[in-house]
């Protein structure tokens, strides 16, 4: 009974969307939330789901900031839920958002939400669009009301690597990561390759803490690394706060991740890799407003504005800045490949032969299970 009512409700909201489309599009296209009153028409209901607390100074906060960006649009009603486990809970949260809040677009932002949870629900709610952060959508396998978006953050990490390579005196960099998954390995490799483009002898030590939020272990790892003579530290865990602060305390350089980490280390902060989800969410909102079809796969890096590099900290030398800026310009232009042969892994096998290069969009990079030569760990 209730279900049927809810479904009809949705159709109405979609239809009324057409009427508001013109107005909304004008507002978004200029990038300013228009104060035009649309109170008479229905709003687009967007639901955001995070796996951790929305103020973790990291991944979830980056999404929350993105959500806050679109929530300002006066024809969008955005709501969210934090700390939703990658289990049947997320299925129920999505259904609850659809059934009880009339969500027509869902943004489940954690990787593990996709298979099987989104894939299970999407056929059941064909009128709802599921946009998953993770870049997994495959037209041959997955429903059409599902889409994926993801950013090539390794581009920004590569730039961090260049700066780190310039600034390191010992030639030893440190990377504190949660677990060895392709996304993490790709960032570690990009960081190392960036640094090695400055000085081929540079090595990166990696510590896997075994979990996404283990502050004490992260601090311990950071301290051990400093003791080993590492002088630039970066990380890939849910919240970079502990690592960056510990690096600052020990007087070494650090590169941020996820969000703008520069306030955490006023002296030693070099640069960092940040998400810019609000640009993605605004893009989707604009498409919806214009009644344009929503693309199933949205990926991009620096050029598309999905990721960005944090402004340089005070310690960064001009030489480092100019080289990183030059590479950044090339990355923005396109055609610059981070993963370009010859690349050996740290066990001595050739993984990318001479003359072959893998561009950012190459799906092969997304199942990375190797670390480049020079990575210790």
């Amino acid at each position: 009974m209730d279900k049927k009512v809810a479904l009809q409700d949705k159709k109405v909201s979609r239809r009324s969307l057409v009427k508001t489309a013109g107005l909304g599009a004008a507002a978004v296209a200029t990038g300013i939330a228009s104060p035009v009153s649309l109170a008479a028409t229905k709003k687009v209901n967007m639901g955001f789901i995070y796996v951790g607390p929305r103020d973790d100074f990291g991944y979830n906060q980056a999404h929350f900031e993105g959500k806050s960006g679109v929530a300002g649009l006066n024809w969008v009603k955005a709501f969210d839920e934090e700390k939703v486990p990658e289990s049947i809970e997320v299925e129920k949260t999505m259904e609850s958002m659809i059934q009880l809040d009339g969500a027509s677009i869902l943004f489940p932002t954690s990787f593990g939400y996709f298979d099987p949870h989104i894939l299970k629900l999407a056929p059941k709610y064909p009128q709802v669009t599921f946009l998953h952060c993770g870049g997994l959508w495959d037209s041959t396998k997955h429903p059409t009301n599902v889409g994926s978006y993801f950013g090539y953050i390794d581009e920004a990490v590569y730039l961090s690597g260049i700066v780190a390579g310039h600034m390191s005196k010992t030639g030893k960099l440190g990377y504190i990561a949660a677990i060895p998954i392709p996304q993490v390995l790709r960032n570690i490799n990009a960081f190392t390759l960036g640094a090695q483009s400055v000085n081929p002898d540079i090595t990166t030590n990696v510590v896997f803490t075994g979990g996404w939020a283990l502050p004490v272990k992260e601090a311990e790892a950071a301290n051990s690394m400093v003791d080993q003579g590492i002088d630039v530290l970066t990380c890939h865990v849910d919240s970079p706060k502990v690592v960056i602060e510990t690096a600052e305390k020990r007087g070494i350089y650090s590169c941020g991740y996820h969000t703008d980490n520069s306030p955490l280390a006023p002296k030693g902060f070099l640069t960092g890799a940040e998400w810019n989800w609000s640009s993605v969410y605004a893009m989707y909102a604009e498409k919806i407003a214009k009644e344009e079809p929503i693309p199933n796969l949205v990926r991009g890096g620096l050029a598309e504005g999905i990721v960005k590099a944090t402004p340089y900290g005070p310690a960064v030398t001009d030489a480092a800045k100019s080289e990183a800026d030059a590479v950044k310009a090339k990355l923005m232009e396109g055609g610059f490949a981070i993963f370009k042969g010859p690349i050996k892994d740290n066990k001595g096998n050739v993984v990318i032969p001479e003359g072959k290069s893998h561009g950012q969009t190459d799906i092969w990079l997304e199942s990375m299970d190797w670390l480049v030569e020079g990575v210790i760990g």
Partner: protein
Amino acid sequence: MLKTLEAFAVTLVAIIISLVLISIFIWASGNSFIEVYQTIYKGAFGTWFSWQNTLVRAAPLMLTALCTAIPARVGLVVIGGEGAVVMGGLFAAITGISLNGMSPGFVLFAMLFTGALSAGLWILGVGALQYYRGVNETISSLLLNYIAIAILNFLVVGFMRDPATLNKPSTHHIGDANMMGVIGESSIHYGLVLGILLCIALWFVTSRTTFGFSMKITGGNPRTAKLAGLNVGKIILVSCFIGGACAGIAGVVEVAAVHGRANSSLNAGYGYAGILVAFLARHNPMAIILFAISLGGIQASGGLMQRRHDLPDASVLVMQGIIFVVILASEVFYGRLKIPNLFQSQKTAQENAA
């Protein structure tokens, strides 16, 4: 009969007190408690969807609660449900993957069997250590939780990993044919049926059989039980095995009905929530059904509370904590409530019968 009535009355009083305390808490956070209660009702039981949401969350809690409740009947405080869920899920996945291709009914049965067996033995170990070596069962079961989780992570990130699972390291899939289905048109999987059936069966065993009676004597005083000629060791071990097996089945259900694989999501806190349910139900398997559904309801409405009232996720924890504390405090009322005259005659009848 009267005991049940008294338990009902005391629990009711406790729930009313906790509702008052929660109201104050909500009011202090700047919300209208009437509206929040409406939201909780809507999110937990307000629609058919909400009911499904609640019941699906209740299913694993029933099974993990038994892992604390059954050993508690023989006097052991076991808090190892989390580890037992992980073990059950892990072995279910191993079984499912290796038998994939055989008849689905058989595979599912085999998964239930190995999952229950492995988790049963896991908790049986806790009982054995307690009985033969005097190792405190609460601490050993707590430590075993961490060890089970470490084993799971080690295997899932290591050599049991399906490389296709990319950024969410998991084992291989058990095969779509082997998945446990849902009940009719609903989105509730058969884990709920297993949970309810096991609760009823174990209620029968604990309250209506000789074995249940000997469990009670052992729980009362092991020395008396020994004097009475009971095989105390066997009773303790069997109880622990049953408890562990139930939690293991919760793990099997997670793998066979939800994920299709074993991964770190097995360690989702069901074991710890189950402890809460067991104590709220005073280790009565029948009452576990009710309390699991109530707790499932609170959890199901948690999301709606976040969205409608901007209450953080932790509000659910605070509410659970308040209810738990008040229900424990309400033990004071037992034997002190004036039961109305209406039941007085029943009381004497009951005593005469006994």
